């Protein structure tokens, strides 16, 4: 009888091990199927038995196209904490300088005046909250129904 119980127990353990590894090997990568096309990212789950909700592991993001070029990052999580971030793919300096050189220089006119008397449509400044928005400069500007545009040949490029 003891033998049978022992056998059953070890069988159960073996089965659960198989199920576990199935989850690790098949469930893990399935998450990534959409990210695979470009960079075949990998995810290794190192702790499956803890009851903790969050998994330790290495999370490799997909290639992301950003304003600076193509980027790929990897985050390492251990003990539920982000321990390391690596940039695996970094836009080369050519990408970045192309980005910079594509800029058309804006014209700037330095002139301290009452905002209400300026012909502007927007104000760039430190953030106001929505609560503080009523009566703010931008709020006042937003009431203007039209913009009187002057063709400023002397300042145009």
């Amino acid at each position: 009888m003891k033998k049978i119980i022992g056998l059953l127990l070890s069988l159960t353990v073996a089965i659960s091990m198989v199920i576990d590894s199935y989850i690790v090997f098949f469930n893990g990568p399935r998450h990534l199927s959409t990210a695979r096309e470009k960079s075949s990212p990998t995810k290794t789950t190192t702790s499956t038995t803890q009851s903790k909700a969050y998994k330790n592991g290495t999370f490799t993001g997909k290639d992301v196209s950003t304003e600076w070029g193509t980027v790929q990052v990897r985050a390492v999580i251990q003990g539920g904490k982000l321990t390391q971030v690596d940039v695996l793919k970094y836009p080369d300096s050519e990408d970045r300088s192309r980005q910079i050189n594509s800029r058309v220089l804006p014209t700037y006119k330095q002139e301290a005046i009452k905002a209400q008397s300026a012909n502007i449509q927007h104000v760039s400044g430190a953030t106001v909250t929505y609560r503080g928005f009523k009566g703010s400069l931008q709020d006042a500007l937003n009431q203007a129904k039209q913009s009187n545009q002057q063709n400023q040949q002397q300042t145009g490029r």
Partner: protein
Amino acid sequence: MKTTSYPLKTAVIDKMTIPFTVRLALNDEAPELSQLFKELISEITADLTDVDETFSPFKSTSLVTQFRAGDGSPLLTSTAFAEVFSLAQIARQETDGYFDPFFDGNYNPTGLVKGWAINQIFDQRLRPLLADPAIVGVSLNGGGDIVVAIDEQTDFRWQVGIEDPFDDTMILGQYELRNQAIATSGISRRGEHIKRMRSSLQQVTIVSDTLVFADTWATAGMAAGTEMLLKLIAKYQLTGVLVDARRGQLHFSEGSVQSW
């Protein structure tokens, strides 16, 4: 000097406690645009709601909250999350570490998300409207961080004033913009929680092609302080305006200082 007037269409959306101003410049009154404009505003409102649900560190269900609690899977499952995470790493490196998405010891992309969201929404919802012959200019302003664009044929230009950090009824000067982004960071700005050098730097405005670049650099500039920022302006060819309490206003263009 010829003066032309362009009717403006304006709406304000309240999201993430920030006022988002959407403004279009039109060729003429174009009443048929009213329905389109209404739909546009509800689409942008929905977009901003999505961004808030995904990226708010204050919402228990957001992906950022999930990631902060030690679950890396949003990097694999959400393209938006992975994009912002990648941008945050690049921005940190590109600003010599002065823009830091880990300022509170954990990942917090709040300083970048607004600029990224405005860029995304602008490219998806507003820029395409320039194909409409009745619309000559489009703009989106999220609490002072702005993206603008104009039709190629028009003589309309977006005029953007730079707020005086000492008197919010005054402007220090104004930019004439065509297709650009502009962001301003100051000491009064809330929700930034960045470490700062001891400095008399009051405000930094950066103009660029994209708002993520402008916004992260404005934040990084405030963190760096005047002396270091002057070096960074030259090194990274920055364009914008800074205000120093002791030295006044300084305007710089592609890395070279224009006046003091």
